[in-house]
């Protein structure tokens, strides 16, 4: 099984908080890999919130090709997080040339573009880079987005963190998501590592997605360039979130209604029955069948956790105003926020979405049977 940990804090934190939490939960994962997502960054990145940051792994040759490609587009390097690793990685971690985290200045020609167009172009650049890298096996690009860093690597999470020397002053974030153990369904491929990211939306998931193929087929036919990849069956959760918010204009409270709709009897008794019935029917191909625990992050820096209808995966949220964490196990939560009121810990069940908003003051529980907060 995978282990998930996410934390949101008013004060920027070192990603080591997440690695330590994964470490105490190590009995629950096999240490085959780790994925890290950082957002609302502190340190030097605090000063460049708008600059797109490219995260990925490159060979020497890949880096040269990247530089040529980016320069041709007009991107200028603004800041680079130097990650120096020892020449011989510890057992279980592959040898890589360059772990890249680099903030760019936008090309001058992009000045004055509206945000939508700007973001569309950023996604296109990332997809082009990914394609180039897949052709020559010399680059892997995890994200290219303002205020977001992603690091993924094969190996025991703590060893990876030590190898990459992630315990450093210039790497801090207010929102951190991390997952230990990567997908075993398919050959280990870093593109199959959670968390996944698309246009500001990120999710990571515990558990297999048994409805993967029909959902993938449906998403791929939506005509959205970013709906691709699918090396992991969990990538669809990110894209469903993106689809529900960007294409349908649905809030997070509808996400669970789309992926795990209520049964017909419950819908009939719901005050928003007509809407929910329509969603259930028209989004039928996005219904997941679990068993999954999904933790995600929205562009406004909210964190959330949703369970599938079967509620077969563990998950808990707890903390104190100013700092909340979502964890697969309570021991992970204990490691990260020991000084909290444990009686307020909450384990979302089959109809719950737990949300910690951008102000990080409380956990909101959105229950599917409750009326929807829709404008009248």
């Amino acid at each position: 099984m995978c282990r998930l940990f996410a934390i949101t804090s008013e004060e920027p934190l070192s990603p080591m908080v997440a690695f330590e939490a994964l470490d105490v939960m190590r009995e629950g994962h096999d240490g085959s890999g780790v994925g890290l997502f950082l957002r609302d960054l502190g340190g030097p990145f605090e000063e460049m919130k708008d600059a797109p940051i490219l995260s990925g792994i490159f060979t020497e040759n890949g880096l040269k090709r990247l530089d040529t490609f980016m320069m041709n587009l007009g991107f200028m390097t603004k800041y680079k997080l130097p990650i120096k690793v020892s020449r011989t990685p510890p057992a279980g971690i592959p040898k890589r040339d360059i772990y890249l985290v680099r903030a760019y200045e936008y090309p001058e020609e992009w000045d004055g573009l509206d945000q939508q167009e700007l973001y569309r172009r950023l996604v296109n650049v990332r997809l082009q880079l990914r394609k180039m890298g897949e052709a020559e096996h010399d680059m892997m690009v995890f994200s290219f987005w303002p205020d977001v860093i992603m690091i993924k690597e094969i190996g025991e999470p703590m060893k990876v963190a030590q190898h990459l020397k992630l315990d450093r002053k210039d790497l801090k974030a207010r929102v951190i998501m991390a997952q230990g153990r990567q997908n075993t369904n398919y050959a280990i491929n870093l593109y199959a590592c959670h968390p996944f990211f698309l246009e500001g939306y990120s999710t990571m998931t515990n558990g297999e997605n048994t409805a993967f193929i029909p959902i993938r087929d449906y998403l791929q036919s939506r005509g959205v360039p970013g709906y691709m990849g699918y090396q992991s069956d969990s990538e669809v959760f990110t894209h469903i979130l993106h689809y529900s918010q960007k294409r349908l204009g649905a809030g997070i409270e509808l996400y669970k209604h789309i992926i795990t709709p209520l049964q017909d009897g419950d819908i009939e008794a719901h005050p928003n029955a007509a809407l929910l019935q329509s969603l259930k029917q028209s989004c039928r191909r996005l219904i997941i069948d679990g068993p999954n625990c999904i933790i995600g992050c929205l562009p406004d820096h909210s964190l959330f956790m949703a369970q599938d209808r079967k509620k077969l995966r563990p998950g808990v949220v707890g903390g104190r105003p100013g700092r909340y964490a979502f964890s697969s196990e309570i021991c992970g939560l204990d490691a990260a926020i020991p000084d909290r009121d444990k009686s307020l810990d909450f384990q979302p069940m089959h109809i719950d979405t737990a949300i910690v908003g951008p102000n990080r003051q409380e956990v909101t529980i959105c229950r599917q049977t409750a009326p929807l907060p829709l404008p009248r």
Partner: protein
Amino acid sequence: MPSNRPITPSTLSVRDLPWQIAWNKDKCTLCGQCTAVCPVHALELGVFRKRTVELPLGIGAPPENRTQLFYGIRQRTDPAFACVGCAMCTLVCPNGAISPHRSDDADKLVFHRDRCGVPRSRGGRRNTPGTVLDQLKFIRISMLTDPALDAGRHEFEIRTLLGRVLPPEDNLKFLRQNGWVPPVREIYPLMIGGMSFGALSPNMWEGLQMGVAYLNEELGMPVRISTGEGGCPPRLLRSRFLKYVILQIASGYFGWDEIIHAIPDMKEDPCAIEIKYGQGAKPGDGGLLMWYKVNRLIAAIRGVPAGVSLPSPPTHQTQYSIEESVAKMIQSMSMAWGFRVPVYPKISGTSTAMAVLNNLTRNPYAGGLGIDGEDGGTGAAYNISMNHMGHPIASNIRDAYLGLVTAGMENEIPLIAGGGIGKSGNLAANAAALIMLGASGVQVGKYIMQAAAGCVGAESDRCNICNIGQCPKGITSQDPRLYRRLDPELVAQRLVDVFLGFDMELRKIIAPLGRSTSLPVGMSDALGVSDYHIAERLKINYVV
């Protein structure tokens, strides 16, 4: 037969017939029930002469000839009266003295079944046992990476949608604007396919309707039944049970005068309207109800004179193009019920199915597409149509589904598969396989007749006389002396058994796949087959 007697080309011996009747003189009590029950009069009274030679004990006394008569049955060899193997004689014989047996020799009767230049017509299905569907296995078994579900105790929602489903963006927009959203029915994915009032006996129809009502109202299973082409009894049209019925309109429009006139009196809308353009059992041919079955009741419901054969034209005569046939007719039928009832066409399996489907994708009123494969059954069709015409359902459905995926409309036009589902008895496995290939639901007819009413027809050309109204079980007969054999209450009970059994078997398939909250439509990763070419063609896993 004396050796010098002339023989005709069609003179056959019992040995030449496909079914041969074995009769045991020692057990027979000459009660005559077998000859009375035989639907094709294959048995007649036999008067046999027996000679015995008696040798007296005394010396010099000459042996004596003694000739006796005895009575029994004789199997007729005239092709018109050839045994059909229904084994009703065996069923009624109190002593177990008689039974038909399949000949171990090649069938010679087949060469003589076009007397008067009329080729053979019959009921039943294509006489080819087995189907590709039987070869498909469900190979994705949840165990450790995701826990298996308990088919008996977990919560399941086995439902499908019938009707045009809008893309989510449009659906939400229309909902906000209070616009028209096409009607969609949430129904059980196993539907009872069109078997007309006329093809089926009143008792069979009544039994099916009662069973469907029970499944809906007592067991909460939204099972739907199609009327087939032949109208609908007036009282059913005006009852609340109409909502469980899919009214079929086909090229003969039989019974539609009655239906249209009943619209103002309808308490409920029907579940849907099915426009039949083709039928898997006899592609390119219209419906056929032979004169034997057109009695006064049937004639009244269909709005025709009694005692005449009712062949529907192969196509809807008022139409001349796919746009006419599909778009306008769908729109007209939708309008008749105020756009509150889904309307969908049903075609026979064909290599041109994609053209029809592509047309439907552009028609916002099309509520689905039924495709009936070559293994579909019928009450009457020419043997040639049944055995040699048509397209297998598996690749037709798969192509259609993948076509919808390419168009991004796989959730919008439900595909309903039919034709030979469960023909080897594997109803749930065949249905689940078709659903995973891309069907939203399946329709069965023949299986229901076999399971709910004891139809003896099989893929070995047994019985198959539905067309002449002599159904020995009373399922497809309009003769009260025959259909009184069938108790509607018991048909209803068996129908409920069939659906409950199917439901459990379907759960036993989808639970180990880790699916319970939605029907695994298009879940092709769960399917495997050990034939490489089938795997390639259907784009599923090749497993050995």
